[in-house]
């Protein structure tokens, strides 16, 4: 089974890069008083993180990111928070554990806890 944390980190890093490259957000962050030094180091970190992932899961992640704007979507109460389809009980992770799952309805990569 694939380790979940690197995928969570990739997702969060992509969202940080989105914040750091969106013109309106960058302008807002600078007005708050933040000093921003550029995204090159983070882009390189992303490449490293992505290179360490299983190609099949990375492919699903990138497809979700390209199609829906985020690579990972949460499951709440057994419902995919992307398409709101109820997922089968048999696919649920053991209590207290998180795992990755592919929504058979919309194809989103899901983080199910």
């Amino acid at each position, binding site marked *: 089974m694939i380790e979940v944390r690197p995928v969570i*980190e990739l997702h*969060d890093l992509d969202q*940080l890069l989105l*914040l750091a490259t969106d013109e*309106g957000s960058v302008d*807002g962050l600078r007005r708050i008083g933040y000093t921003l030094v550029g995204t090159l180091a983070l882009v390189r*970190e992303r490449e490293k993180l992505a290179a360490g992932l299983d190609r099949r899961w990375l492919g699903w992640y990138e497809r979700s990111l390209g199609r829906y704007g985020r690579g*990972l979507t949460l499951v709440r109460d057994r419902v995919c928070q992307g398409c709101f389809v109820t997922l089968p009980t048999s696919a649920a992770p053991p209590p207290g554990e998180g795992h990755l799952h592919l929504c058979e309805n919309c194809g989103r990569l899901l983080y199910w806890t």
Partner: protein
Amino acid sequence: MAIAEMPLVSSTPLDIVELRHKRRESALMQLAVAARRLGVVRDVDALVALLARRERLGTTALGKGVALPHARSIAVVRPFWIVGRSPKGIEWGAPDGEPVQLAVLYLAHHEQSPATHVLRLATAAQALRQQRTRQRLLSVDAVAALPLLQGGGS
């Protein structure tokens, strides 16, 4: 009151942590562990990694002894403020070179839009520009700190 003028921090709970460490990385770790203890975050290591990456984008210290680190993460269960206090100060790479006495961590769910995220931070930053607010945040409890952070109660 117009919707745009309504306080934006009020619905987000807050807690206070006394920071024991002198290094930025250790202080961020302590704040993340506090978030885990409060049940605000699912994966503390993922949060620590994100906070470190945010610092690599540029220091989150704003000057005048204040840092405003922030994270928008799928590991965050619900929005939360954690005020870390360090009367002795922590080296945070601030633009004015002053050590940070108040590290105000804002945790947001990953579904929060970038625009809303920046707006929440701007509201807190505006409140933290007032010297009186900063001084009071160093001594008050969490109940009294929340209105201070939203720009009221001073």
